[in-house]
């Protein structure tokens, strides 16, 4: 084995670009392992642990330097891999043409970028966490509204930023805000949806995505869908951004109805939301995942148990359409067909998700039937000790920090989920596997293709054993991956395709209910 490292001083690229470079290097012939990363302490640690950076190499590099580390079969393999990397580096330096031919312009500083765009009013900030608060503040001082995608921002800085934002009537969506629609433009992990009269304010990222794509599928449209960052409704942050957004949406002429998608807010924050919305002229629907309707009883706020119900209620209120109640026997026949194929050992469900709120909704619906579910996103007795190893009924959020430390998010890169699908297939107790398939901007160009291939491979690994695979696409027919084509690929791999995340979980729950009923009889 030949080890090679190189430190390029004062050379900065963003984390996604670096991951693409790493991918190109790793894929080169004769390369055992390779990575390109910025020289932060954390990254140097990761590279050293992976055997692709020596202590000497680590000592050479600082946080502003780019490190290339390669472990390959021969000097020739290293040289070939580096030449491939140079090609990538050269092409990334060119101005990129976006799909419609418009060139993406670059500027050396924030102020020159603001001028170049003709007087900016909006900034998207996704720099590493320790720099993000300062950059967001600089943008707001220049009068810009901000989408703060970065995480690892302290709660003290979050409060400072939001106090400034509220005082100056500026949006500060975040930190850790991955999804928003502002004036019809989708930001972050978001989808092409119709414009219309429904607005939302949401601490939950994939929750907002799921509700918006269902609204679109039901024929409704979005006026504004604003993020707040996941911690906004906790006691310390006090709902600062959510409350400001709700007020603005109530005053917005295009908005006819308002939705909130979140885990249950802290008691004090909930009280403030109720007191505020009582004064509103527009109907409000809340999906507090994991909460219950007693939380809003008597407040005038409509309560939705699932993200699907939230979307249906908002479309009903906005457009005067009505939707039939869920048929509790909808999946009975399907369940009977599936359980007839299981071995006596098969009894458990595994959920493998890329979206946190999608996973959480799945847990809540599955728990009603199978009892407590192990997970890496819940605390207490059923917190999964080792996220790599499922126990009994297990639902995993593979977008959680454990899986994304040094690795791309599973919405972008399907490799970790593909590996896990194959691992679960080897477990003889698994009956059902539930998957999400997130489409739209920011997401993988063909997640269904990767999942379908993984399931086909998993079937071979499982030998004669029949496992039920269920998936739902969080996306629209206008997304570049094309929802229709993605659903087709899933079906051709024998995966059952549900309308949405809640229905996928209900389908799984129906199968397990019939299975357990049959065995307990």
């Amino acid at each position: 084995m030949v080890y090679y490292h190189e430190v390029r001083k004062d050379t900065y690229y963003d984390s996604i670009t670096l991951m693409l470079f790493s991918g190109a290097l790793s894929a080169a012939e004769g390369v055992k392992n390779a990575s390109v990363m910025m020289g932060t302490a954390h990254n140097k640690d990761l590279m050293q642990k992976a055997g692709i950076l020596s202590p000497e190499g680590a000592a050479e590099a600082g946080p502003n330097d780019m490190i290339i580390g390669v472990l390959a079969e021969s000097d020739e393999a290293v040289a070939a891999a580096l030449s491939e990397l140079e090609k990538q580096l050269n092409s990334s330096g060119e101005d990129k043409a976006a799909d419609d031919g418009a060139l993406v312009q670059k500027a050396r500083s924030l102020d020159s970028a603001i001028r170049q765009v003709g007087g900016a009013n909006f900034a998207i900030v996704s720099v590493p966490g320790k720099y993000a608060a300062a950059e967001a503040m600089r943008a707001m001082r220049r009068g810009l509204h901000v989408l703060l995608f970065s995480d690892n921002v302290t709660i003290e800085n979050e409060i400072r930023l939001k106090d400034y934002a509220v005082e100056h009537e500026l949006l500060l969506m975040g930190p850790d805000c991955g999804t928003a629609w502002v004036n019809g433009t989708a930001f972050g992990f978001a989808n092409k949806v119709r414009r219309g009269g429904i607005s939302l304010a949401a601490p939950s990222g994939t929750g907002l995505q799921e509700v918006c794509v269902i609204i679109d599928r039901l024929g409704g449209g979005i006026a504004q869908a604003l993020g707040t960052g996941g911690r906004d409704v906790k006691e310390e942050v006090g709902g600062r951004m959510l409350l400001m957004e709700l007020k603005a949406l109530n005053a917005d002429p295009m908005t006819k109805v308002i939705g909130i998608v979140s885990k249950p807010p802290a008691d004090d924050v909930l009280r403030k939301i109720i007191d505020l919305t009582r004064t509103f002229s527009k109907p409000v629907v809340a999906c507090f995942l994991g909460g219950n309707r007693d939380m809003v009883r008597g407040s005038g706020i409509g309560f939705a148990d699932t993200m699907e119900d939230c979307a249906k209620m908002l479309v009903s209120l906005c457009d005067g359409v009505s939707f039939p109640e869920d048929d509790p026997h909808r999946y009975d026949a399907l369940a009977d067909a599936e359980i007839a194929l299981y071995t006596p050992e098969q009894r458990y469900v595994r959920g493998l998700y890329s979206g946190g709120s999608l996973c959480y909704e799945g847990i809540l619906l599955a728990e009603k039937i199978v009892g407590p579910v192990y997970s890496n996103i819940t605390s207490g007795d059923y917190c999964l000790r080792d996220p790599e190893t499922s126990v009994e009924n297990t639902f995993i959020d593979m977008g959680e920090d454990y899986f994304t430390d040094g690795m791309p998010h599973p919405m972008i890169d399907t490799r970790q989920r593909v590996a896990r699908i194959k691992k679960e297939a080897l477990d003889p107790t698994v009956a059902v596997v539930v998957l999400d398939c997130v489409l739209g901007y920011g997401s993988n160009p063909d997640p269904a293709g990767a999942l379908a291939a993984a399931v086909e491979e998993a079937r071979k690994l499982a030998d004669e054993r029949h496992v039920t695979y269920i998936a739902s696409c969080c996306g629209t027919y206008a997304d570049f991956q094309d929802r229709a084509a993605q659903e087709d690929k899933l079906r051709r791999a024998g995966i059952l395709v549900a309308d949405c995340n809640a229905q996928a979980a209900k389908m799984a729950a129906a199968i397990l209910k019939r299975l357990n009923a049959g065995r307990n009889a």
Partner: protein
Amino acid sequence: MNGLNKLFTEDLRCVNLGLEIFCDAAVEQGTPCVQVEWKPPAGGDPRLLMVLEWLEV
């Protein structure tokens, strides 16, 4: 009119600091966006950063 409500009436003109895919996506949707060629300020030195932040306040 509240500043946020004013934003809802305007055409967005964006600047992007960080992952270029966000800038690409905005431009693809017809929303002007300029990518800032961002690097960690102060050479990434956390102590210098704190001083810079304090100066900005």
